[in-house]
């Protein structure tokens, strides 16, 4: 079908294209990516489903306002490189966002087609476009404005920092990114597993940023190796953006939480993703709890919990449970991830609350005492409050417990920079229009401001901050549409 001659009826007759995926039975035995991506034919078919609204609400549904209608139109016309250019005006990391954004709660949620049919698969198309560029051998790099002579330090190298660094570089500022770990990418590297976001993709997207002249320095813990005041002072930076994420895992505060075999999702995932512990004794010297034939329970219902439980299954767990105190409807994880987890044989113990971890005489975990819950009246969050069912306690035998109930804010930066104001929850307080903190020339965005949220919200905050920093530094407004 031709994009120019297709009728409205023909458009509506095209079914939403199903992305090919690795078979569930096969994929629990490997760490390769689950979803395999649309074919060019599928992408074009899917793009034809878009009716090109005059006033596209999907754009407002996107935290970085990608010109969704325009890039989809280019795909429909078969101009894939044109689509790459269009998307990169607003988002430099399409291969990443196409994979990990919760499109069903953003652009696709408001898609007009979705009112009667399934919404246009905007996320899958974004992913297609990003991957098309990566595999085409042609690199599309944005135009960089002439050097302004200004220098900006970006702290952390996760999604908020990368999107901020990208925009700042395009404005013509010199950007240096400081990362505490030995690898760049933040949560994209240590948190999100290979089977959901291959690390090679993150590395390739980082290479694109390097080509723009952005400098990256690993092994620098801002707040310890160097302070914010030193960056602005003797190091001569004109502004600083803090995008360090929410990296301080919460625990549940129940008895037995310090038994051997109870760990935070951050530790488990970092060992496996960043330190490659799944390849222990071969390409990695870092061990991880041996899950083979064991029972592993993950406590929590978010995307990180799904990542952890599916990782445990891939490491050979006999039973891999999700223990969540509300029902599936209240789970913060993406529907797609819950679906994938179920397909892979993850067992969901819903309306179940852990009361206490129990262990043997060597302090190794042997089980968790759980209590069944039922849903009562709605609470402050609008979700029905889980209420304990008396007398429903039982012991679930487990060998490893992974706590995945969220993260607080890391105190390293504000402890050493007292004039940066923080909230009661220790998140950095900013003016939401500019992302400026209480300290002159210091901006912040992403999870360190909002608490644990999504990759794309962090990227949106990074862009907002970049625009405000540029204005502050007297840079000219760049037309991001110019390539």
């Amino acid at each position: 079908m031709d994009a120019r001659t297709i009728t409205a009826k023909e458009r509506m007759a095209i079914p939403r294209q199903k992305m090919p995926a690795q078979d569930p039975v096969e994929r629990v035995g490997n760490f390769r990516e689950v979803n395999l991506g649309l074919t060019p034919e599928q992408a074009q078919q899917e793009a034809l489903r878009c009716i090109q609204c005059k006033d596209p609400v999907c754009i407002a549904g996107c935290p970085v306002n990608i010109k969704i209608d325009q890039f989809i139109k280019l795909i429909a016309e078969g101009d894939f490189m044109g689509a790459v250019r269009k998307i990169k005006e607003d988002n430099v990391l399409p291969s990443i966002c196409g994979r990990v954004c919760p499109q069903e709660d953003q652009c696709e949620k408001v898609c007009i087609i979705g009112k009667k049919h399934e919404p246009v698969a905007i996320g899958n198309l974004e992913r297609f476009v990003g991957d098309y560029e990566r595999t085409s051998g042609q690199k599309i790099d944005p135009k960089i404005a002439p050097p302004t002579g200004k220098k900006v330090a970006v702290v952390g190298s996760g999604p908020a920092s990368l999107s901020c660094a990208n925009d700042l570089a395009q404005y013509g500022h010199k950007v240096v990114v400081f990362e505490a770990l030995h690898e760049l990418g933040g949560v994209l590297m240590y948190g999100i597993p290979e089977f959901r976001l291959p690390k090679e993709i993150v590395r390739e997207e980082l290479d694109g940023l390097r080509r723009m002249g952005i400098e990256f320095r690993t092994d620098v813990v801002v707040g310890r190796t160097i302070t914010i005041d030193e960056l602005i002072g003797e190091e001569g930076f004109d502004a600083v953006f803090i995008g360090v994420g929410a990296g301080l895992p919460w625990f549940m505060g129940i008895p037995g939480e310090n038994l051997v075999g109870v760990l935070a999702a951050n530790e488990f995932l970092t060992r496996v993703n960043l330190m490659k512990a799944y390849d222990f004794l071969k390409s990695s010297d870092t061990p991880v709890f041996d899950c083979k034939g064991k029972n592993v329970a993950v406590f929590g219902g978010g995307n990180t919990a799904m990542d952890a439980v599916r990782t445990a299954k891939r490491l050979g767990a006999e039973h891999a449970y999700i223990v969540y105190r509300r029902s599936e409807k209240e789970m913060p994880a993406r529907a797609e991830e819950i679906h994938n987890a179920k397909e892979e044989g993850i067992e969901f113990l819903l309306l179940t609350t852990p009361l206490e971890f129990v262990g043997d005489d060597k302090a190794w975990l042997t089980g968790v005492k759980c209590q069944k819950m039922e849903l009562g009246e709605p609470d402050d969050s609008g979700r029905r409050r889980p209420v304990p069912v008396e007398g429903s306690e039982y012991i679930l035998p487990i060998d490893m417990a992974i706590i995945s109930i969220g993260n607080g804010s890391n105190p390293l930066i504000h402890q050493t920079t007292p004039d940066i104001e923080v909230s009661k929850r220790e998140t950095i307080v900013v003016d939401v229009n500019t992302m400026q903190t209480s300290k002159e020339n210091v901006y912040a965005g992403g999870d360190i401001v909002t608490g644990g949220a999504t990759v794309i919200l962090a990227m949106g905050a990074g862009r907002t901050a970049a625009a405000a920093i540029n204005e502050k530094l007297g840079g000219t407004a760049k037309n991001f549409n110019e390539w």
Partner: protein
Amino acid sequence: MYRIVSAIFLAENIKKFEIEAPRIAKKRKAGQFVIIRIDQNGERIPLTIADSDPEKGTITIIAQGAGKSTRELNRKEAGDSIADVVGPLGTPSHIENFGTAISIGGGVGTAIAYPTAAALKEAGNYVITINGARSKDLVILEDEMKAVSDEAYITTDDGSYGFHGFVTQKLQELIDSGKKIDFVLAIGPIPMMKAVADVTRPYGIKTVVSLNPIMIDGTGMCGGCRVTVGGEIKFGCIDGPEFDAHQVDFKNLADRNRIYQHEEKEADDTFAHECNLTRQA
């Protein structure tokens, strides 16, 4: 990459390295540590900074070959490089003029006790050091400790050098001598630190220990290094590594440090086997 400027064995299996890391050398304070990674496949290993030279831009670390990674580190020589050195991490030692301060180092723990002893001396304390080892060949930093001490004692378990006995016996002797002791710092194996805490507790002497929990990032992100102090969960990497010895749950620390003992042994055996093969070839 971070270049090793010098590498010398202080005792069998205990090696001292000076490594180029100018930013860390400038910043570090007593009690802080670095995390190093030997190569691309390497673990992240936390090691306390024993000393630094801001002029030369170097830091000193002392490592005992205890598992695969530390044995591999101890094969590195001057001129070699390691992939990563990050720091300084952890909260610096709380240093003030307490009056009379005793700094106790057990085994390779002396490497960690030394910089704090030096800082205590500089703050005006009357510093007594007790440097304990299993036997004479394993005594390290004897001259360095002496140089920062008003009184310096060596103890060996087998009596081959100095006082015959444990550091705790020497400590008890000093307490019994009627000396007013205001502060004790003890760094070494977990049973030693626990024993020191037990000795000082009845006298109410402020006692601090430096803990060595398992950790990955060292910045608070992984939560692996959590320790129980005063019944509360604390993170070794950011709240510590130094804590009030009388509040630390040493059993919990010892238990938690055993989580990977099976894997560590496997890695160590494989490494030893590979070394033998290399030697034969």
